[in-house]
């Protein structure tokens, strides 16, 4: 077995939490159940990884199998990576029948026609997700197995999720290969990024509960709102305000759980407008700002701002539009004033 393959397998095993190694090796399926029985999972990880490498040696593992193990680890720990979303466009109208073998063949051919030194690995999952792992080399160097790119593609959709960690120069090639293989003609990057791959899928596949504009909620007749927070000190006035905020929040965010995003970024290039009494800045140039919101669960925290009294209800559409516009990077310019001819 190649020494670099052995080292790569050893390091991959070391990344795994000790109590999950057995499960991942079983999923991998490269070592027999009998071989797995011989492993002592109670020793330190360093020793476990060496034993695993020895067994792989017996089975003559090559880079293909090592790459497959890496996909298994990264599929389970997908949230350790940052994912960007791309959308493909078709020229024709028809939905052609998707042939996975054809897809793989075309993808590999396109990449290899430009770059010989690559390792390409595929794995299909039950939810129709196709995972692709690409390790990149150069015309003169073997592929770097430690900085592969991961692509996740659901064939019934035009969306591609990419976790890069590669030279920017390889990205165009990767995108090209994807559209060629899937019979699309164009691909563009969406302004949507997150560690939570499932949340990105929720957003672009519209799997979260949204507000539907045609739905008009029944006006709440006092006493129906958040019974668990019933605070007898809240008088009727405040009670009505709470209801109003709750209703507006529901309209904006929907009533189900929100997709999990960690940040949203706004590049503001709007004019500064001072308050009526302030004798301050009155430039003709934009007031340039960069605003970044971060949270372990951004949409849930934004949803709780108005009820906490930290924001007005309804919250700004700049924030509430994040899921249905499927973006968390924005550039905001001043709206052009329209002239009304007399």
């Amino acid at each position: 077995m190649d020494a670099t393959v052995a080292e790569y397998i050893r390091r991959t095993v070391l990344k795994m939490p000790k109590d999950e190694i057995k499960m991942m090796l079983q999923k991998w399926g490269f070592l027999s159940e009998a071989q797995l029985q011989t492993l002592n999972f109670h020793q330190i990880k360093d020793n476990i990884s060496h034993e695993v490498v020895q067994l792989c040696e017996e089975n003559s593992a090559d880079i293909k199998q090592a790459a497959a193990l890496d996909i298994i680890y990264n599929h389970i720990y997908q949230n350790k990576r940052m994912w960007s979303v791309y959308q493909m466009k078709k020229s024709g109208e028809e939905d052609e029948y998707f042939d996975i073998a054809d897809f793989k063949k075309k993808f590999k051919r396109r990449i290899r026609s430009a770059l010989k030194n690559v390792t390409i690995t595929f794995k299909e999952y039950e939810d129709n997700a196709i995972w692709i792992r690409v390790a990149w080399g150069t015309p003169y160097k073997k592929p770097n197995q430690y900085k592969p790119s991961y692509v996740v593609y659901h064939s019934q959709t035009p969306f591609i999720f990419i976790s890069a960690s590669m030279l920017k120069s390889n990205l165009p090639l990767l995108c090209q290969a994807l559209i060629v293989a899937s019979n699309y003609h164009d691909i563009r990057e969406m302004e949507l990024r997150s560690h939570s791959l499932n949340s990105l899928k929720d957003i672009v596949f519209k799997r979260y509960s949204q507000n539907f504009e045609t739905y008009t909620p029944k006006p709440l007749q006092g006493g129906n709102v958040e019974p668990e927070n019933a605070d007898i000190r809240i008088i009727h006035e405040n009670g009505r305000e709470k209801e109003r905020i709750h209703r507006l929040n529901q309209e904006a965010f929907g009533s189900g759980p929100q997709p999990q995003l960690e940040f949203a970024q706004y590049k503001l290039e709007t004019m500064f407008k001072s308050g009526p009494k302030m004798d301050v800045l009155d430039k003709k140039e934009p007031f340039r700002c960069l605003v970044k919101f971060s949270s372990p669960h951004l949409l849930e925290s934004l949803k709780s701002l108005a009820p906490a009294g930290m924001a007005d209800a309804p919250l700004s559409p700049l924030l509430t539009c994040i899921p249905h516009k499927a973006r968390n990077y924005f550039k905001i310019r001043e709206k052009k004033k329209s002239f009304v001819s007399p």
Partner: protein
Amino acid sequence: ESADPQQTAFALRKAWTLYSVTPLHRFRRSRLSDYARLLSAFIAAEKQKGLAVEVGVELDIKVALSSLAELRGSELDQAALLVQLSSRSRASSKNSEDKLVWSGWFCSMFGDELSENVPENFTCLPLFLTHGAESYTSLVGSWFQKTFDCCFRRLAISPLNLSWMVAMWAGYKLERAASAVELVFSMPCLSQPLDISYAIHPEDAKALWDTVQKTPGEITQGEVDVFMDCLYAHFHRHFKIHLSAAKLVKVSTGIASAHCDGIVKILHSQYLPGVLMLLTELAISQIQ
């Protein structure tokens, strides 16, 4: 008035943790090498007792104390006092260089308010800045407390003081392209914590401050309030969020940055005295 760049270079571009210190009793400037020796012995003894927690390679700690005559504001200020802890691994050869593992310095920049009112035999250096492992800070602090009967307290920086700093620093002119004027807010009491970073192009922030400040060289609380209100209003216009209800935890400009936990980084030697003066004032308020 600008201090010798050699003397002040160590202070720049490092994150310093701030403390206030009460006046030192019977501190003699002439005995610095004695003090260095005593502190060194103290550290070695504490390590024997197993109290210093540097795991790994056995290290000998060397202590150096020096006076920085240039780092002071007025004639009434004491010169700054620098303490440096270096290590030399016992395993390596005699020729290997010492590695600086911790530094701390005592300073008074226009701290007349305090020094005017202390009896003889007391040395006023109300501001203490440290950089390095907490365990060393603890050791050095304990020794100074025992030896000079003084008291150290972490110096937190309130949102009010942070807003003074950002308003003041935003107004300074910088020759080269400077970094953004950034305010970081935290909103902890929600279902999920939320942090907001609000970064303004330095030219635009300065332009705003210039229209707010009425008298050059002088800043009033009212002007700082107007500046902050403008920033809050611009933010509210876009996001409908009341930043004034959030906690200002960090401010950052091309001059310096400051965090509410009492951590400061100064980037420009030209503005070092100004920043130190502000911090000295905060330290003195905490002592009194």
